[in-house]
């Protein structure tokens, strides 16, 4: 119904073309690193931190912090896109790929529910977290990941809106049937592809 509408008097700030090519629809470039979370920042001591894979698996797996730190690590440079409209280019992370972690279990599940300290959850199709698409990262720009950005460790799934990159992640639950996570139950899109602008229910 708003086809062809022009905002009277709006000129806007044109972006250089290389910048606009990297920006999904409706996004703007942010140079800081905004924080979004629904509640207080949890502070889990490393001594009691662990990461587990549970659910529809042959044998659940669990890693202490020290064990997690011995797993094969990768460095990742990616653009990230938040559903609240900001994008940030060339962010650098280090951590363990979900492919590496999930190779240690047998499963016939199709979906992954990531769960975090504080009760946050988010759901993802298994095929979208394998083959270099998702990581558990504990380092940002060469420094230990700060608590307000999800430290000690967060999920990183840069090809989806950033709410899928669960902060303070503590494990993955593998499930046969998809189930909406926290924001996915509260009006946000179940999938969240920024290039298709899948922000909300029905997008």
């Amino acid at each position: 119904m708003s086809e062809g509408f022009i905002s009277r008097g709006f000129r806007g700030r044109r972006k250089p073309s290389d910048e606009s090519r990297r920006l999904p629809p409706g996004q703007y470039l942010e140079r800081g690193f905004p924080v979004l979370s629904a509640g207080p920042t949890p502070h889990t001591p490393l001594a009691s931190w662990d990461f587990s894979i549970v659910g529809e698996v042959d044998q659940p797996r669990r890693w202490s912090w020290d064990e997690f730190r011995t797993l094969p690590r990768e460095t990742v440079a990616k653009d990230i896109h938040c559903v609240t409209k900001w994008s940030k280019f060339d962010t650098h992370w280090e951590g363990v790929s979900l492919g590496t972690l999930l190779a240690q279990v047998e499963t016939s599940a199709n979906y992954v529910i990531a769960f975090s300290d504080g009760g946050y959850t988010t759901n993802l199709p298994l095929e979208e977290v394998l083959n270099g698409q998702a990581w558990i990262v504990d380092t940002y720009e060469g420094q230990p990941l700060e608590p307000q950005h999800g430290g000690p460790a967060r999920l990183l799934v840069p090809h989806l809106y950033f709410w899928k990159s669960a902060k303070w992640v503590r494990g993955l639950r593998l499930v046969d049937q998809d189930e909406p996570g926290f924001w996915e139950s509260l009006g946000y899109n179940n999938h969240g592809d920024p290039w298709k602008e899948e922000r909300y229910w029905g997008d």
Partner: protein
Amino acid sequence: MERRTLLGRLSWQLGEVVATHPETARAKSITLAPPNWRGHRAGQHVDVRLTAEDGYQAERSYSIASPPEEAPRVTLTVERLDDGEVSPYLTEELRVGDKLELRGPIGGYFVWEARMGGPLLLIAGGSGIVPLMAMLRHRAATGSSVPARLLYSSRTFEEVIYREELERLDEADRMLEVVHTLTRAHPPGWTGYARRINTQMLREVAWPVEQRPLTFICGPTPFVETAAASLVELGYEPGRIKTERFGPTGET
């Protein structure tokens, strides 16, 4: 699945600007009449989209300031950011009779409805007052007697958004307490707080821990981080503290 079908797609619509009201030198309220408003809850926001003549578009999110009871009219309060792309247009160019493209309401977590009870603890930093004002207006519009306290941090007296309305609400309702703190400058004779919020201030203003207040905090990231961490330190349940933040870390 069922809920998704019921709610359908959040479509873009053109709302006419029916009123504007300057709140402070930098903040302006804009009242819109969207043709297909399905109603909202206090605390939710909308997406706004501007389109230039050559098709260039910019989108941003803004909190709704008006209570559900004023639907189908919807009021946004926008603070002008000097280096902003959208907020200068909304606060300086847009006028009554213009149309603004929007979709919403959005967000189902940072919301308060009178039936959710309390006591209510609202903590605002700067323009973080906007969604909390929707809650206070909703509380007043429904005649709710849920006890409520607002702790509102502003830089200066002149930058306090909704100052007179808050005064009126505070005076008219003995179940509501409004507490200000001014962090940069304060007028002669100022009797409120005159420093940044900290644990000591929250200990004085927040409800006793055992009353388990339902808490909403909105403001710049470091402000929200400080307030939420202090409340957890004082023993409040993290699960009853809801936060909404704007701006990068380190920004004040």
